[in-house]
């Protein structure tokens, strides 16, 4: 039998570089308001004996925590999503396994959830040296441009949301990192919260914007997801039409030279470029069309709207 749903679940994915979990837990615990029913879910990404010992000691001391140990290290977003699935609380708080944030900010995070569904977290000051801060700002201004709104730090180890949000959004892969954006897009209420960075910022590129290229790919994937999944041809169509148009114009121009100036076409490699662009344009449009057919085929199973309430 499942125990009574806790009011607040704290999920801490533990992987790679984790800090002193006992001290961390004490700090998190101290920052929590007393009145709420709290459960802690620690997810160990693979065999981490040191972390296991620390958490077992906490458990023996009577701390309300649950330990989930994965059979092997999965890395990336897996421990996080398993932790969320194993937690029961109506509100979920995901906290990092290192002192990345100042725990004093946790109450403000919970207060933000009172009137909203998701807290969009920023950590200030941006941790790391000048080079890292520079990349952070580049990445985030690009994200703001692509996604259309500047909401939260992407890849920050802190998430706070109501359970209804993850039940409605299909989160897979690294999508959790974009939770505030996806939730905002789905009409959930998102409030910004600024936390102070903690004693130790993230070190190696375990996750987050540091693993630059992968983060960029993720960003592009979410950009497509937000803008064009329903209408792929609206993305591919203009690109293909542009390529086709350019190739067509080039070919017509060359044909004109042949007809009116008598330039021999067989000696014009530029014609190859024109034909190549035409071919590429048609191919891009055809791919968009295939996307459209896939969407159309599944459209009856997709619900594009979310009902807030029904009256009467």
């Amino acid at each position, binding site marked *: 039998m499942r125990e009574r749903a806790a009011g607040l679940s704290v999920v801490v994915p533990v992987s790679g570089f984790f800090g002193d979990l006992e001290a961390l837990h004490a700090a998190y615990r101290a920052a929590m308001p007393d009145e709420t029913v709290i459960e802690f879910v620690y997810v160990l990404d693979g065999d981490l004996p040191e972390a296991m010992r620390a958490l077992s000691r906490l458990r023996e001391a009577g701390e309300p925590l649950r330990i989930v140990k994965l059979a092997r290290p999965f890395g990336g977003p897996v421990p996080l999503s398993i932790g969320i699935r194993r937690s029961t609380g109506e509100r979920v708080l995901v906290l990092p396994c290192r002192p990345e944030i100042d725990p004093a900010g946790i109450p403000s995070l919970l207060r933000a959830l009172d009137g909203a569904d998701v807290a969009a977290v920023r950590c200030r000051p941006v941790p790391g040296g000048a080079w890292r801060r520079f990349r952070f700002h580049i990445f985030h201004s690009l994200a703001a441009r692509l996604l259309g709104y500047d909401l939260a730090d992407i890849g920050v180890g802190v998430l706070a949301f109501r359970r209804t949000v993850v039940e409605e959004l299909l989160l897979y892969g690294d999508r959790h990192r974009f939770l505030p954006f996806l939730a905002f897009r789905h009409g959930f209420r998102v409030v910004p919260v600024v936390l102070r960075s903690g004693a130790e910022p993230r070190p190696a590129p375990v996750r987050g914007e540091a693993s630059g290229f992968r983060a960029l790919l993720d960003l592009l994937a979410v950009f497509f997801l937000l803008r064009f999944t329903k209408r792929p*041809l609206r993305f591919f169509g203009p690109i293909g039409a542009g390529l086709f148009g350019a190739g067509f114009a080039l070919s017509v121009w060359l044909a004109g030279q042949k007809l009116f100036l008598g330039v021999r076409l067989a000696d014009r490699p530029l014609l190859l470029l024109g034909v190549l662009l035409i071919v590429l344009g048609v191919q891009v449009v055809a791919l968009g069309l295939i996307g459209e057919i896939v969407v159309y085929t599944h*459209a009856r199973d997709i*619900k594009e709207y979310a009902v807030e309430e*029904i009256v*009467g």
Partner: protein
Amino acid sequence: MDLSIVVPMFNEEASLPLLHAAIVEAVAPLGVAYEILFVDDGSTDGTFGAACSLAATDTHLRVVRLRRNVGQTPAMAAGIDHALGKTIVTLDADLQNDPADIPRLLDVLEEGNDMVCGWRERRKDPFFSRRLPSIVANRLIAAVTGVPIRDNGCTLKAFRADLMRSVPLYSEMHRFLPAMAMPEGARIAQIPVRHHPRRFGRSKYGIERMFKVLFDLLTIRAAVSASRPFSRFAKAATAAALPGLLSLGWGFRVAASLPGASVLVPFACASLFFSLSFFLLVCGALCELIHSKHAGRVPAVAGSGAVPPAQARPGVAL
């Protein structure tokens, strides 16, 4: 429940009481069990409050509120999904459609049709910004889909609810509802309906949608009106092979007439076109694969009795 009136609305606070009164006035005398479904598409004004206070006075009225603004088609899909009636009538909330036309739509539906589309007689909209683009779009849609609907932009329609459950409604596809319902074996009738100038608020459309309509048409052409998408792609592949053959002939002619001349460009052009042709064939095969799953579903219209079996879409056996 016999009849559901589905009205998607976005920021239409001012017109709601009039709209509601007009619908009740038109539908109540019919003596059928009916409901009115207002779908509030994430309005930012007092639409939801106004609709709720109306719902408090009228037990026939239900209000579905969407969490955010999703656009007219998904809002309509929400209304249709929540409608309980065997027959569904959709209309605009902006009072440009006249609810008094509903009984006539229902009469025509009773004559054995699955869908009755209104077309706006004497449209009261500006000519160059609204009516001209609309005329061009309707001609184009009719030519491409082969379903001669005079006025695809008119929301006032009546149809059988089970028909619509087999037609996908997403993005901005409500414009192509008749064209999408046709392959499902639907019988479609059209009648002229009244059209009033806007009294409140402002129009939520612009001229830039023409561009989107073009790509939508391509989609419709490939996904809907083709019973087998492979044949469409095969035609495109043939069309791509023709310039390839011409290039090939040109290359041989150059080689024959000018010995020693370079024939790289003609032959490279030919191979590019042939590769495109092959690519399109592969695309067609892929689409066929996707489409066969879709076609395997039992069409909702087939069993209803309203449509002769010959007209219903046959399930594809593979």
